[in-house]
């Protein structure tokens, strides 16, 4: 083989302008390093997909990568607003973005439908909620057996899914654990999958029924230690809660934000690693 690439090569080769790209990780294992590389490579017109946009999408939106946002909860967890997201939605800065807004449950149903090769998924939801009024991607169907009215949401099949995991072996098999979120689902939902990992090991030695992605479903594995910071990687490092708190101040002001991004993302050397 192998599917081992540098992060820079993986993003350059596999993510194109205008793509639909999902970066998943539910608080845990958020692929920050990959998001920064996308910003550095100035990918534009992306449809960004993530249940919880978090600081990583705040940065990508603020830097002009996003044409459209598919999401379900766009706050800074435990802190407050995502100011760059709000600035884009409320004031169209740096440019307007389209919003495809759902609920957490609906996002997971869309991911699992795509992973299972189905065009849509069924859930009991959105009855009485205004979300369905504003989002044509939420429809209602009747159960053919009971007649019950249920919500239907279309599969989300990104061009590229990017996740962060704790480990891969040299063959490119990936193992993650702890709060595994929807990473397996989004990886199997997408056409291509890029995984950044803390560590490359000789033998995964994964426990029974662990969350493992076999190498043959992974487009690229990139060795990026610390690639989830300031979120956390269970067993490697903690969430940097102080960063999330500090981000509120950094991101409130456009120029302050841009300066921070220049100094901390744009002018930094891309993370090395890979084969």
């Amino acid at each position, binding site marked *: 083989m192998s599917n081992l690439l540098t992060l820079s090569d993986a993003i350059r080769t596999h993510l194109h302008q205008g793509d639909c790209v999902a970066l998943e990780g539910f608080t845990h294992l958020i692929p920050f390093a990959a998001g920064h590389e996308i910003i550095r490579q100035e990918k534009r017109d992306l449809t960004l997909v993530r249940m919880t946009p978090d600081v990583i999408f705040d940065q990508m939106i603020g830097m002009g990568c996003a044409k459209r946002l598919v999401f379900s909860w766009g706050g800074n967890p435990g802190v407050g607003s995502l100011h760059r997201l709000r600035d884009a939605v409320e004031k169209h800065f740096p440019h307007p973005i389209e919003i495809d807004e759902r609920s957490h449950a609906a996002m997971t149903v869309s991911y699992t439908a795509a992973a299972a090769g189905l065009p849509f998924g069924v859930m009991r939801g959105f009855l009485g909620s205004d979300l369905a009024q504003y989002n044509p991607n939420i429809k209602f169907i009747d159960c053919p057996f009971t007649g019950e009215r249920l919500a239907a949401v279309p599969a989300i099949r990104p061009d590229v899914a990017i996740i962060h995991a704790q480990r891969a072996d040299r063959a490119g098999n990936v193992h993650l654990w702890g709060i595994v979120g929807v990473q397996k689902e989004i990886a199997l939902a997408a056409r291509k999958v890029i995984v950044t990992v803390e560590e490359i090991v000789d033998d995964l030695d994964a426990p029974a029924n662990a969350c493992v992605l076999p190498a043959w479903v992974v487009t690229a594995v990139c060795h990026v230690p610390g690639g989830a910071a300031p979120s956390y990687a269970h*067993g490697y490092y903690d969430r940097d809660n102080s960063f999330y708190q500090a981000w509120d101040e950094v991101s409130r002001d456009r120029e302050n934000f841009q300066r921070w991004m220049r100094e901390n993302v744009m002018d930094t050397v891309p993370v090395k690693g890979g084969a």
Partner: protein
Amino acid sequence: MMSRKQSGFPSDESFSSDEKRGDAMVATPSEVMTVVAARMLQERTVCFVGIGIPSKAANLARLTHAPQAVLIYESGTIGTRPSVLPLSIGDGELALTADTVVSTSEIFSYWLQGGRVELGFLGAAQVDRYANLNSTVIGNYQSPKVRLPGAGGAPEIAAQAKETLIIINHDRRKLVEKVDFITSAGYLDGGDSRERAGLKTGGPTAVITDLCVLRPEFQTRELVVTQLHPGVTRQTVAEATGWDVRFAEDLTQTQVPSDLELSTLRELERQTALAHSNDAAGKTSLTRNNPTAEVTRP
């Protein structure tokens, strides 16, 4: 009443430091709200918990009268017993202390939609007189005055938990006649409109604020004040409510938080602050070792 921070959108669940401290064994309004919410979580209840005050209340209950309450967080942790409060919904602490950690999609399908959750705690930016919740926008959806974080897990918690409790700071901008946007259904237009919309679960049974408790009136489903917190007058509540709020005939007084409740709550907050300041200092509590043994210890 004591000074109460009128916090704005959307970081309304954070606390000012003076509230956190309070006088020894004299509860702040926020503490009263948390204690009252905790009391409503009965022993052994399976509870779907959101971050912020819901998480604080649920863990206070677990550490006092409901040690066997089962706490589920949407990040996928089931039966979690955090020793400090998580700052985010997916903190490692939640995984480390859980009976089992499943995927987020499984949490919403098998556990919440599967009907296994008895009680859901919800917060919101707005609640209206029929207990509908808004966490999406202030103003118009297409060109919002304030873009709030959005739905998250709330619409399904509101629809699928057997009953829900709403926790919110009492404020005319928050307790409104009609929410700008129904993110999560309460009783919709009141009466049987919730049932007619096809919702099969009980809906909100209480709105707990830092001033009082409101409950849906039988039949009309309008929220009425059923319980006033210590030192709070009807007038204070009426002025802080965005509709012409009514008071139940059998209006009761909230029992003052006990020393045990307050000391447990404050100790939990102290430990939490300590742990998070350790995080900030770069110390690592999640040690790196064999993944096979590190998570999911009951």
